[in-house]
């Protein structure tokens, strides 16, 4: 069955093609069957392949399908490389993807562009599978750009509202910055190592480059640029909150569970390069730390249910980067997986809330809804517990591993650990602020709401609930991928540290309870002071990053565009046109229609030529 690995991206691609070519003329039922069914088939194939692969005990399998292009020795192909890491990614993408597609068949049922939605979704899954299964960086880049395109298309899905179009363009342009950096990184790798096949490349890099050499640092930095753009980390994180303009299942699939973790996958895939550049690896950790704290504070102040979840996504990917940065590769991948479960659950739950409350996004207009929306409430409760790393939920195990690995780092380890723990506290605080404000307390409107949840919407939620609770027990089979680089040294962590890591999220939850349920503390009292007001405004705007970029990049660009409105370069070509026209006018004057005049010109020309011939 492993020989049929090419079927994985093929099913969604066929789904995309059939939906696009029929142009929305298919009945809704057929659209839903093709849209969700293609992903379901992929998942089945993926599951069979996974069982066979794990049963065979091999470390990796390569299947070459066909050569894409051949230029000299450079022959990137559609070759699929399957090892523990791509296996995990493949199962997440098809599994969670299928659940989200199933959910979408119910969620999007009233949308007039039903089939357009599923065609984009299928194309996305196909590209994403290409990305994680690619055995060379060129094919990976194809998938990388493909998911970027689908992200753009789906953020701007409701294109009649110009704001959504703006958000889509913003996401596209901001991630483009990272993509450019990554492309340059690929050029550098190819020119230095002579191959873009990932395994050969890593092998060559280890042989040719000394640890910490300039080239290794440059290559790792450029790849990191790409990862930062895709995974919405500092300083390119500004696009993700705006990406919530798309339909909610999109936010769940693309902007939480799969695409935004592509950066984490890239770094894990090329981890050898990062090990050769320890300074860059440490930078990864600090980027993750800074992002997770910043996004945590911002999530505390948001009112839009989806923006809170968006910032929490940024924050959780920050944890993954922290894990990558401290060399806990498998822990980062583990967190990627558990995060896919609980974040998909949270977003789909949010979708149910939003749909049931007539497209209400403001959490302060909800309140007391737990009886009315029981399934959404259960999703949020379980999802938030996992998100906040409540002991023995899935998020607890993965976050625990990352924090322990951070602690093991010599030097700045303790600071990374403390930052991570502070982030865990914030996570508990903001995730349960959301739960308490939406589902407890007094109702603030929408009393007529009735939960919208057919089988197609409820079933994925239930499955995801189970995985969010128990996903921590899954062993990710990535040990063989990272075996040679990982610090497996026995590190004794005192009982106190463990106790702190367990207690901190619960403290966050408790404080949030005191604020929003028992009202022991009041937010109004805190907000009375000017400092708090300023901080709230600052955090609410995402630490002013959008304003900063507006001033630093967008406005100068617009200024230049305005100066150059008449197009200076074009002036030169306009001059050419004018010159030609004037010359033409002059020469047409000589065409008088007078025969004698022509005869005279001929004679004069002859005389001139003969004279010149004689004289010269």
């Amino acid at each position: 069955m492993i020989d049929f690995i090419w079927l994985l991206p093929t099913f969604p691609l066929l789904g995309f093609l059939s939906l696009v070519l029929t142009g929305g003329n298919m009945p809704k039922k057929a659209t839903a069957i093709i849209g969700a069914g293609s992903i379901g088939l992929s998942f089945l194939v993926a599951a069979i392949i996974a069982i066979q692969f794990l049963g065979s005990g091999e470390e990796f399998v390569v299947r070459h399908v066909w050569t894409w292009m051949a230029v000299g020795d450079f022959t990137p192909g559609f070759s699929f490389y399957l090892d523990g890491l791509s296996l995990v990614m493949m199962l997440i993408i098809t599994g969670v993807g299928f659940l989200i597609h199933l959910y979408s068949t119910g969620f999007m049922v009233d949308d007039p562009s039903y089939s357009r939605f599923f065609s984009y979704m299928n194309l996305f899954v196909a590209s994403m599978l290409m990305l994680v299964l690619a055995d060379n960086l060129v094919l990976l880049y194809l998938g990388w750009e493909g998911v970027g395109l689908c992200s753009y298309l789906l953020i701007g899905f409701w294109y009649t509202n110009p704001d959504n179009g703006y958000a889509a363009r913003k996401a596209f342009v901001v991630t483009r910055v990272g993509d450019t950096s990554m492309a340059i990184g690929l050029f550098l790798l190819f020119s230095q190592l002579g191959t873009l096949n990932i395994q050969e490349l890593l092998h060559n890099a280890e042989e040719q480059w000394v640890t910490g050499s300039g080239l290794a640092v440059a290559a790792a930095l450029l790849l990191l640029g790409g990862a930062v753009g895709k995974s919405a980390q500092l300083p390119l994180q500004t696009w993700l909150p705006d990406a919530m303009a798309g339909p909610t299942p999109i936010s769940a699939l693309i902007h939480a569970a799969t695409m935004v973790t592509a950066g984490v996958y890239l770094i894990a895939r090329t981890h050898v390069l990062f090990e050769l550049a320890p300074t860059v690896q440490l930078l990864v950790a600090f980027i993750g730390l800074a992002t997770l704290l910043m996004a945590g504070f911002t999530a505390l102040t948001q009112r839009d249910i989806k923006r809170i979840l968006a910032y929490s996504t940024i924050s959780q990917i920050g944890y993954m980067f922290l894990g990558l940065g401290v060399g806990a590769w498998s822990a980062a991948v583990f967190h990627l997986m558990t995060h896919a479960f609980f974040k998909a659950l949270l977003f789909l739950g949010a979708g149910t809330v939003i749909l049931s409350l007539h497209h209400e996004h403001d959490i302060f207009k909800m309140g007391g809804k737990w009886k009315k929306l029981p399934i959404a409430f259960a999703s949020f409760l379980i999802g938030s517990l996992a998100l906040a790393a409540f002991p023995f939920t899935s998020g607890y195990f993965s976050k625990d591993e990352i924090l322990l690995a951070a602690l093991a780092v010599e030097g700045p380890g303790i600071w990374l650990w403390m930052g991570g723990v502070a982030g865990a506290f914030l996570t508990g605080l903001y995730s349960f602020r959301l739960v308490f404000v939406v589902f407890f307390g007094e109702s603030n409107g929408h009393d007529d709401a009735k939960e919208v949840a057919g089988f197609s919407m409820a079933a994925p939620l239930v499955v995801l609930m189970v995985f969010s609770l128990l996903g921590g027990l899954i062993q990710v089979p990535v040990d063989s991928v990272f075996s040679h680089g990982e610090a497996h040294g026995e590190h004794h962590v005192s009982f106190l540290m463990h106790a702190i890591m367990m207690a901190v999220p619960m403290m966050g939850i408790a404080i949030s309870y005191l604020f929003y349920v028992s009202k022991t503390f009041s937010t109004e009292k805190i907000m009375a002071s000017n400092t708090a007001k300023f901080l709230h405004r600052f955090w609410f705007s995402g630490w002013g990053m959008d304003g900063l970029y507006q001033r630093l990049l967008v406005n100068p660009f617009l200024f230049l565009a305005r100066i150059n409105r008449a197009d200076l370069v074009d002036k030169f070509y306009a001059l050419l046109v004018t010159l030609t026209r004037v010359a033409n006018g002059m020469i047409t004057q000589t065409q008088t229609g007078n025969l004698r005049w022509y005869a005279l010109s001929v004679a004069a020309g002859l005389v001139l030529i003969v004279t010149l011939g004689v004289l010269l």
Partner: protein
Amino acid sequence: MQTIPIEHGLILASILFAIGLIGVLTRRNVIFVLMSLEIMLNATGLAFIVASSRWGHAEGQVMFIMILTLAAAEVAIGLGLIIQMYRRYHTVDISLLSGMKG
């Protein structure tokens, strides 16, 4: 036998050619233009004859006969055109016919 020096013949041909050219350039009446063209053709013919008799070659004579034939054909077509022109425009003044300008 006293032969005419080649220079004399060529000077005469040049003078004839110049007269013909001036006629072409200055006359308005298209019939005179045609006649001036004939003079120019004959001037070149004369130059051929003079040159061939100087070097004792027959090609010059042959060339002159060809020019003569050409001139006859030209006159036939030219006169035909002039008749058409007169029928259509009721004039033989070529300076009035400048419909192809600019």
